[in-house]
């Protein structure tokens, strides 16, 4: 079995460790070997901590032999976006500016994963300071897509998407301020969920825009995401903006029947830039939900949602410019060009307009939730409006003209749920004619990640999209 460990999902990996059919050490060594072998092809690895990880895995095995199971992720090797602080590990954030940064404390999400038994084995590459959705990085190099290395991985959790997509690792933490979990998940053919804003503590996670930043998982399946999210969600006194809302048992809710459940689809706005090819895949995914007894309910999207994509950008770049203010003044030459331009754009925005953008959020959120969730349990819509593009055709330095419009189109269906703070997941649902994966999104009420993961899990039991492995990494 050892040579095929990578074909297992995170949940399956946890089960074989728990049953004693394989040891954490075997699985950890296998994951390290795959990261070392295939990581350079995808440029997805920042650093591997083999010695520490193997020692931790051995301790997990001893603990299990003594009848002590730490939690649902006992002994499972994971690796994360290089923005989560671990005392004693470097944390570079995909940047030159922080290439010597050694935090002296560990992020809450990492601590909670360790408490659930996970073994932390590597830091994964990311877009510079998490500011970009394509996966390009002038400083550390572009991360590549495991389905075709000429294509983008999506960003900013680019290394997480590529590593999970190539089956180098079963799950990874990412962050999502404007789609940074969902884009790499969609481009690389894996599942990713941005929880409700404030659902997961951001303590010890590199900030980009505090009003929008969310920490969440990328993994092969919705069940895998449920396991990770269940471990990291909840109030944290070290992040006073984390929510005290109760946390659902995501795994226990996965098998709830969809018979009679209502799935909303948009009558307007979200399909405006969507190609016919993507639309046909969306229709096919809805047929699967219908076959499980769900009712598809068209809903009219309030006009106020049409401004949310751009206003999300305004908040991101303005708050980001605030965090980076000193480095922007003192070390502008140490940023990659796109990153510098995006932060400088935020520095131009007057405070009154930033405050206005924030003040609109609660109203837009209430209008949307009333329009959609008074009629349905979850909301279904496309992820990206077009197939995954190549690295070259989306290289900002080569294609400055029209780049802003391209990014706006890419974020059209995604960023509104950062602005409104609603939970949203990217679920693989096939492949476009260029051989790259595509996904739909499911959105839920605030703090209703359970309904999203439930619907996604049942969809994945009915289809085989998440079972497929890129040929180069099989």
């Amino acid at each position, binding site marked *: 079995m050892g040579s095929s460990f990578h074909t297992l999902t995170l949940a399956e990996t946890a089960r074989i460790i728990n049953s004693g059919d394989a040891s954490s050490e075997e699985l950890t060594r296998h994951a390290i070997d795959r990261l070392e072998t295939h990581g350079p092809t995808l440029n997805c690895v920042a650093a591997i901590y083999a010695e520490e990880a193997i020692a931790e895995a051995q301790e997990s095995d001893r603990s299990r032999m003594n009848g002590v199971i730490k939690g649902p992720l006992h002994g499972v090797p994971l690796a994360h976006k290089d923005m989560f602080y671990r005392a004693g590990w470097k944390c570079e954030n995909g940047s030159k500016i922080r290439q010597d940064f050694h935090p002296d404390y560990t992020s809450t999400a990492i601590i909670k994963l360790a408490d659930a038994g996970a073994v932390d084995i590597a830091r994964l590459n990311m877009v510079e300071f998490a500011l970009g959705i394509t996966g390009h990085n002038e400083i550390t190099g572009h991360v590549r897509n495991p389905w075709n290395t000429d294509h983008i991985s999506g960003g900013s959790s680019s290394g997480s998407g590529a590593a999970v997509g190539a089956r180098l690792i079963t799950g990874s933490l990412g962050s999502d301020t404007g789609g940074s979990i969902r884009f790499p998940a969609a481009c690389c053919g894996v599942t990713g969920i941005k929880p409700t804003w*404030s659902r997961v503590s951001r303590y010890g996670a590199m900030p980009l825009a505090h009003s929008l930043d969310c920490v969440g998982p990328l993994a092969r399946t919705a069940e895998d995401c449920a396991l990770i999210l269940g471990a990291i969600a909840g109030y944290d006194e070290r992040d006073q903006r984390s929510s005290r809302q109760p946390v659902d048992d995501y795994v226990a809710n996965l098998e709830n029947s969809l018979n009679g459940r209502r799935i909303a689809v948009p009558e307007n706005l979200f399909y405006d830039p969507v190609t016919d090819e993507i639309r046909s895949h969306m229709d096919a995914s809805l047929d699967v939900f219908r076959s499980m007894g769900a009712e598809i309910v068209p809903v009219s999207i309030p006009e106020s949602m049409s401004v949310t994509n751009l206003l999300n950008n305004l908040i991101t770049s303005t708050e980001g410019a605030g965090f980076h203010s000193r480095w922007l003044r003192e070390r*502008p030459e140490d940023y990659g060009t796109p990153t510098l331009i995006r932060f400088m754009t935020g520095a131009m925005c*007057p405070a009154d307009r930033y405050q206005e953008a924030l*003040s609109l959020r*609660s109203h837009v959120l209430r209008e949307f939730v009333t329009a959609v969730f008074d009629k349905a349990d979850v909301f279904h819509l496309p992820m990206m409006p077009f197939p995954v593009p190549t690295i070259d055709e989306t290289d900002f330095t080569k294609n400055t003209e029209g780049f*802003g419009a391209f990014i706006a189109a890419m974020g059209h269906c995604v960023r509104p749920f950062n602005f409104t703070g609603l939970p949203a997941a990217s679920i693989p649902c096939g492949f476009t004619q260029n051989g790259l994966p595509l996904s739909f999104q499911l959105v839920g009420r605030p*703090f209703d990640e359970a309904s999203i993961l439930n619907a996604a899990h049942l969809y994945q039991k009915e289809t085989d999209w998440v079972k497929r492995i890129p040929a180069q990494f099989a």
Partner: protein
Amino acid sequence: MDDQRKQTIVQWATLANQFSGDILDLSDSAASVLKTMDLTSEAMALIDPPFGTEPSEFVRALNELAPHREASKING
């Protein structure tokens, strides 16, 4: 938006360009900021939130709009 404010942003971008030399051209950024500012004005006019609305209103809305929980479905 008044012309004076637009002019200030364009001047800021021009000045930043002079300091940063070959590193970047902020003319597109200035145009983008101006467009987004106009959009914010339009959205404010459309939605007209009450004076005093602040970020805590957003947290309140998230909590009020969350579904009611059954105790058996809650973790721990």
